[in-house]
């Protein structure tokens, strides 16, 4: 083996928490752990000390694929110019409060 060994770094995990009252998992931060189970345990100790959670997801940071800001023009803008997807685009008679 002629390769110089790389310094082994502890994998970085991203943590997502859904609170008891929440509907979605929210990214709350990251931590270092050697396996998913350990990451989950540490996530509970780090991010749920005040009992805020109902569900935790941990994902190794390297497995997250993120969009680039430079993609914005083609990635996001077409989503942004269709106002008819928003409820506020439409007028509704004032006495109707069920729509």
């Amino acid at each position, binding site marked *: 083996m002629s390769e110089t060994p790389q310094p082994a770094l*502890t994998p970085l995990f991203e943590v997502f928490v859904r609170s008891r009252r929440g509907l979605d998992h929210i990214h709350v931060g990251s*931590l*270092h*752990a*050697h396996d998913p*189970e*350990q990451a989950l*345990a*540490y996530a509970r*100790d*780090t991010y749920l*000390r005040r009992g805020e959670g109902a569900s935790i997801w941990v994902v190794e940071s390297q497995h997250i694929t993120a969009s680039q800001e430079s993609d914005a023009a083609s990635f996001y803008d077409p989503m942004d110019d269709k106002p008819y997807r928003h409820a506020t685009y439409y007028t509704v008679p004032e006495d109707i409060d069920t729509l």
Partner: protein
Amino acid sequence: MDATTQPDTEDDIAQYAIRLGDDALIHGQRLCEWSSQAPTLEEDLALSNVALDLLGRARLLYTYAGEHLNCSEDALAFSRDEPHFQNVLMVELPRGDFAFTMLRQLFIDLFEIRFFNALTYSQDKQLAAIAAKTLKEVEYHVRRSREWLPRLALGTPESKRRLQAAADELWGYINELFEVDALERRLIEQSIAPDRQNFYDDWLAEIQHLAIQCQLELPDSPWQVAGGRAGRHTEHFGHLLSELQFLQRAHPGAQW
């Protein structure tokens, strides 16, 4: 049961609660010593969580005992002298290295998961309630300590050596976890306390199974130490108490 046995039972229950509280307080105190010293930041947080669970448990038990003895939780923690503390000796041993701390934790967690489960069936409602709350915490503790065993046993030659050394040192303190004295015998007969001896075989079987999986040698020595329940402590205990009780002793009667 005639009327004369009733006060004795309440006395016994109070002493029993104190004994369990002592186990938790002293173990919690040793875990506090890891603050800002853990191998990783994440582990510092995890150890602190276990310590907080133990200290919280001690508070519940002392408060309960204090109701009968008409004293506060703090009076029990800070005013008693060494011979009156009834913790098992294993918890008062110095924290040692991480292998020692985690193996001690494993031995105790595997005991407590069985013990507190049984205590939830206590005829004493308050003890049963404390046991139910404790059980949830212990389930988490035992998961953690079970996960650490193979990491240390099968990690590096050094971690294995340290774990083996920890096993050799701790083994002599194990029997005391399962000892039943006259106080507990009386409470067992009234279905207030579980019989510790009932857990030994099952506990040992699990330890042996884990040891085989992890290639850890369980010591063979017959040497066993006990005495904590009777207030006979190791030389470590006096130093622990000095630290724990110093402020209250230096300022008798003060409010904090």
